[in-house]
């Protein structure tokens, strides 16, 4: 399962990647990008099975990334988990409208992210 972690903060990318490594995802299946623009380039050249995406990033925001990726035929159903500090209800609704599968507000305990990820990484979807 190829997973793309998108966050402009390196520490957050590392935290997410460490959790995924704990799941047994091989390092070679983990991809990362510091903004939506670079993430789109990776998603175009590599078939990604799950996206973890921040909202506020330079170049291309997480929200615009989600809209762009959903417009690509091959990623219409691919799980996208937004992990962001944006906690306002209208932000959550906007993200869902854009096509995110799940929404997590930072700061989060590793356990919560693991729980959300388990549904996709271990079970292949929401149960």
């Amino acid at each position, binding site marked *: 399962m190829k997973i793309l972690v998108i966050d*402009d*903060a*390196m*520490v*957050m990318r*590392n*935290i997410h990647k460490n959790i995924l490594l704990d799941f047994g995802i091989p390092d070679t299946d983990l991809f990362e990008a510091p903004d939506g623009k670079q993430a789109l380039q990776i998603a175009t050249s590599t078939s990604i099975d799950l996206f973890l995406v921040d909202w*506020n*990033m*330079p170049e291309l925001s997480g929200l615009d990334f989600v809209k762009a990726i959903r417009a690509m035929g091959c990623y219409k159903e691919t799980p996208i988990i937004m992990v*962001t*500090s*944006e*906690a*306002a*209800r*209208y*932000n959550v609704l906007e993200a869902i409208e854009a096509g995110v599968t799940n929404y997590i*507000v*930072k*700061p989060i*305990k590793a356990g919560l992210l693991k729980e959300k990820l388990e549904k996709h990484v271990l079970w292949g979807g929401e149960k």
Partner: protein
Amino acid sequence: MKAQYINPFLTASVNLFRNYLGVECSSKAPYLNQDPQNLDEVTGIIGLAGETVGAVVLSFGRETAIGIASKMAEKKYTTLSNEVIDIVGELVNIVAGNAKKDLLEFRISISLPGVLVGGGSKIKWPASVPVITIPFDSELGPFSVNVSLKV
């Protein structure tokens, strides 16, 4: 500025530093900061826009910034590295983003965070908008949360 506009930032800060990072800390009484350029050495800044203008600035001494970043990353930093600066930006991003949920009437959008190091750089506060400072004492040293919000 009324407490109802400051409390969301206080709550978000306590949630981040005490509840999430496990840093023993306590806030002191907020006050109107007459000299908001005179902050600590490491400052994380984020702009607020929408139906208001404003800014949120977290300010730390060097050692406090390094200590808190070490907690966040669960690794030991000893210098003010790019990773530590990256984390300070993430901290102010979390405080501002979390506070939004209790300030819905302003439909706030937040900028990308910036981090300044040293006393030579000037913070661009919104003109004619007061700055309220919430001082914190913590096991890793004092820090402050500074909020300017046009209401």
